[in-house]
């Protein structure tokens, strides 16, 4: 592994927060779009507040990531504001990704409105913001890189749909009665089936594209981190399956005790999802796939 400084760790954490906040914002927009008729006003306004906080956090963390990467390049605080370092990062793909993310976050602001006619631009914004991470990174070293970029966009949209729905679902479990929680969880679960399948398929294609020499790949730092991510995702999928196959049917049957179980289950998913994003930030910041 390359030498890792405090600035690298700070940049890594800022990148993880950028992932989490951006995907959360996009997930909130998607969640409201497909479950709005099942939501009540108090839940809608809490989800809107969550969306507002996620949008602000995504914008701040995104800018902070670039500044911290510049500091990491120069190794000191002054480098954080060094225009040549920042310029190098922005020209090398970070600028394109950040510009697309900011455009998306601005469009997603429409979802803060209570009027449904602004939903379309908000969804476009959510798609742009969630897929902005595909415009910089390891896949851009592949030739050609249009298909890998498209596959990564699909992967990111699926992640935003799944992980981004967890916080709104938790809000619903705190406010709604068991049957309505069941109805919303069932709708999410039905859509998530196809989305998670797309997420796994896209992830498998990306993995295949990134692996050149399997033995070297899996014994590298990058391979170890990726193995850690895959193991965490496997646990996450198991919990999601438990929610869909056990808790949601119990909620639909009117079993109110399942609401508490669903809350704990969603909280566990959020912790594991955060871990996945942190690992992803680590292997996209401090290491890279072996040659």
């Amino acid at each position, binding site marked *: 592994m390359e*030498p890792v400084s405090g600035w690298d760790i700070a940049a890594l954490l800022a990148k993880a927060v950028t992932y989490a906040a951006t995907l959360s914002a996009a997930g909130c927009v998607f969640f409201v779009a497909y479950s709005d008729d099942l939501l009540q006003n108090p839940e809608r306004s809490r989800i809107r507040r969550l969306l507002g906080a996620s949008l602000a956090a995504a914008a701040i963390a995104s800018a902070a990531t670039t500044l911290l990467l510049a500091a990491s390049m120069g190794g000191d605080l002054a480098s954080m504001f060094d225009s040549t370092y920042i310029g190098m990062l922005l020209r090398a793909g970070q600028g394109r990704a950040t510009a697309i993310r900011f455009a998306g976050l601005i469009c997603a602001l429409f979802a803060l409105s209570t009027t449904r006619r602004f939903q379309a631009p908000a969804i476009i914004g959510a798609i742009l913001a969630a897929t902005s991470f595909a415009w*910089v990174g390891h896949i851009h070293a592949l030739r050609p890189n249009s298909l890998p970029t498209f596959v990564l966009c699909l992967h990111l949209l699926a992640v935003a749909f799944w992980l981004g729905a967890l916080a709104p679902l938790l809000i619903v479990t705190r406010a709604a009665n068991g049957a309505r929680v069941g109805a919303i969880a069932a709708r999410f679960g039905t859509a998530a089936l196809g989305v998670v399948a797309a997420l796994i398929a896209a992830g498998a294609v990306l993995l295949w594209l990134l692996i050149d020499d399997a033995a070297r790949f899996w014994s590298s730092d990058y391979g170890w981190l990726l193995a850690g991510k895959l193991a965490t995702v496997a646990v996450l999928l198991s919990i999601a399956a438990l929610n869909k196959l056990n808790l949601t049917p119990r909620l639909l049957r009117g079993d109110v005790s399942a609401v508490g179980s669903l809350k704990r289950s969603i909280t566990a998913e959020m912790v594991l999802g955060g871990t996945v994003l942190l690992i992803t930030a680590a292997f996209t910041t401090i290491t890279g796939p072996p*040659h």
Partner: protein
Amino acid sequence: MFKNVCLAFALSGALAAGPCLSHAKLQSSTPADSAQLTQAPKTLTLNFSEAAQLARLVVVGDGKEISIPIDKTAKASQSFTLPLPGLVPGKYTVQWTAVAADDGHVTKGTFSFSIAG
């Protein structure tokens, strides 16, 4: 039919994707890592695994940092040769930082060489 065309396009694109590259890594240098020289080198050459922009280059000798001027606005390249100031006998560590042109990732590294007295 449309689905089949999309699938064929996706598979052909995936199969056509070139070999995987990654962060710009230092493949070789002159002086080489751990080189023991009898004369002070006049230049320093860094060869990277892929095109990169050199962001920072510092030579540390006897606890003192010697910053090597680099053109940070130059086009990305796989190889950089930079003039060195006159170095006295001793042990030197080279610290470099680069940004990969393709994936935009920052990489850093160090290597050492010594000049016999």
